[in-house]
């Protein structure tokens, strides 16, 4: 127990930014929109959260700023793909590029600021204190799970992702729903960034997220667009990362480069094991994912 508790705690924390960003992207993709700009939105969220929090705004306001900034970045994306009907993959990648640059630009005045991290709540004596963000990530999971499968809104959202033209014909406001889904994705990416910059590694430096946005994107695919599997994937990825560090510290005589490959390889292997059960998995992908939709077409 004593050996496993710290590993568990570190895994939970390492998976949290992936869960936030992944759940947001999952909802966006369920509405049929592929936003590859997660890394960019995360960084914009991170720098905004850090800037507000470290300028005396406090952590709550900082987190809200991160969420807001992520939404603003995703609004730009929504404008381009929903109104200008731009290609989603390209626009998302452009957003990732733009976000890296913008966050570095805004952040120049904040690199030297210092911030105290969040201190957690103690749930039970003897257990490590719980971080509000980690608790929040589980709450967000429950919310998304409920919304997608137990609410009418979720049903409509999925219908829009499967066949926007049918949803449109039935009188649902396709564009509005996609706007909401994109903004939700942006908010979640911003929240992931806020967690990184104000709690996990409380600092601002260029490229703080170090590629976590891309991993979150991959995990949505890994999850076959199901929230529960996303959670499992994030813990798998985080857990293997932590375990290989433990292996190294214990003195395993395996080149560290191979140890560092493990989280990536584990994800591939597990996805293959899940997928081989049949075509049902592939059908989980929202049918209209990534395609431009226009009422005339």
């Amino acid at each position, binding site marked *: 127990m004593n*050996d496993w508790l*710290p*590993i568990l705690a*570190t895994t939970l924390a*390492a998976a949290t*930014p992936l869960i936030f960003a992944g759940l947001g992207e999952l909802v966006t993709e369920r509405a049929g929109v592929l936003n590859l700009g997660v890394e960019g939105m995360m960084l914009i969220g991170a720098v905004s959260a850090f800037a507000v929090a470290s300028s005396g705004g406090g952590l709550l306001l900082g987190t809200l700023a991160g969420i807001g900034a992520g939404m603003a970045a995703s609004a730009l994306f929504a404008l381009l793909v929903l109104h200008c009907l731009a290609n989603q993959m390209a626009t998302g990648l452009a957003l990732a590029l733009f976000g890296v640059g913008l966050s*570095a630009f805004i952040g120049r005045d904040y*690199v*030297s600021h*210092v911030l105290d*991290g969040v201190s957690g709540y103690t749930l039970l004596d003897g257990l490590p204190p719980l971080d509000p963000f980690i608790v929040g990530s589980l709450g967000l999971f429950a919310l998304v799970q409920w919304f997608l499968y137990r609410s009418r809104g979720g049903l409509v959202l999925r219908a829009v992702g499967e066949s926007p033209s049918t949803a449109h014909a039935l009188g649902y406001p396709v564009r509005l729903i996609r706007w909401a889904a994109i903004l939700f994705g942006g908010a979640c990416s911003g929240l992931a960034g806020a967690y*990184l910059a104000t709690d*996990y*590694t*409380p*600092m601002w*430096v*260029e*490229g*703080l*997220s*170090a*590629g*976590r946005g891309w991993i979150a994107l991959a995990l949505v695919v890994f999850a076959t667009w199901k929230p529960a599997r996303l959670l499992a994937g994030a813990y798998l990825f985080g857990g293997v*990362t*932590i375990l290989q*560090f*433990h292996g*190294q*510290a*214990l*003195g*395993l*005589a*395996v*080149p*560290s*480069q191979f*140890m*560092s490959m493990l989280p990536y390889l584990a994800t591939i292997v597990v996805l293959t094991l899940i997928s081989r059960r049949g075509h049902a998995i592939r059908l989980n992908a929202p049918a209209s994912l990534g395609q431009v939709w226009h009422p005339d077409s």
Partner: protein
Amino acid sequence: MNIDRRTLLKGAAAAAGLAALSPLHALAAIPKPTLPLKIGFVYVSPIGDAGWTYQHDLGRKAVEESFGDKVQTKYVESVSEGADAERVIRDFAANGHQLVFATSFGYMNPTLKVARAFPKTVFEHATGYKQAANVGIYAARYYEARYLAGIIAAKMSTTGTAGYIAAFPIPEVVMGINAFVRGMRSVNPDAQLKVVWVNAWFDPGKEREAALTLAAQNADVLTHHTDSTAVVQAAEEKGLYAIGYHSDMSKYGPKAHLTAATHHWEGFYRKVVQDVIDGSWESSNVWGGLKDGMVDLAPLNPVVPGDVAALVAQKKQEIIDGKLHPFAGPLFDQDGRQVIGAGASLTDEELLKMNYYVEGIVGKLPK
């Protein structure tokens, strides 16, 4: 992913490089520059607030401050070590910069190539091993500060185990790890050092995760050879001690930060600039240590007891006076094989090629 940035070399390698390029050496005649002297700096990462590039930029600012309008400095940051470096270095030279500092190991071959095309421009390359008539090389003996930091770590540790978060297994990093554990064992013969490689110079999240891993495995003093302040912050959060690297990181962990092994390029950069302005610059191979002020320890945290501080000050003086060598024999590698006997110490060349762990380190260094 910049893997092979920065690192050092010297000694025989430099001699070999010089021999190979001897025809050029004969041409060595760097003219006195027209003022203001235009100086270019090539950085491998963003400047930030701490870390490798930040320390080099402090050097650039010191030059601007000292020489005022006699110099004009420019820099390009985040230059990757592949094909882009040659273009940036050449661009500086072609645009009238008469002195170019290339501040990462991976710029070595590009710098030499450009230097051949611009024989009247002075190049200074950090942490490489190839010299030429118009290419000087420089690095610092980071291991001297690491040794002192190891002494502090062993004295402050209650578990006798320290943790080291390292980026890539290149000689410079391995040398630092070995010097640290030598320092630890000089005051606690049973001390242990656990090493985790994150395979990235910069990834605050992974650095933190590696730090927590080591903390979970009994390490109560953490240090790092990576580029962010995440390890110091993680130690602060967990109530452990930490030793920073590159820069004084005390503001990121006021309680945890015992000291830091710091780099200082200001003095060297000022001297090079002065030499170039005077027309007296000559290609040289500088590997400066505590004595030259190119490495140092950041001010010690008040929690470090007076006797430990005194011991560190004494050992520092001994290193400066040449009485103490962190790699003095008898030196055993971690398999118990004797590398050198009593009375001898590793030569610079042996140091620069170091690719084995000395005794006291948990884990194997993959070959």
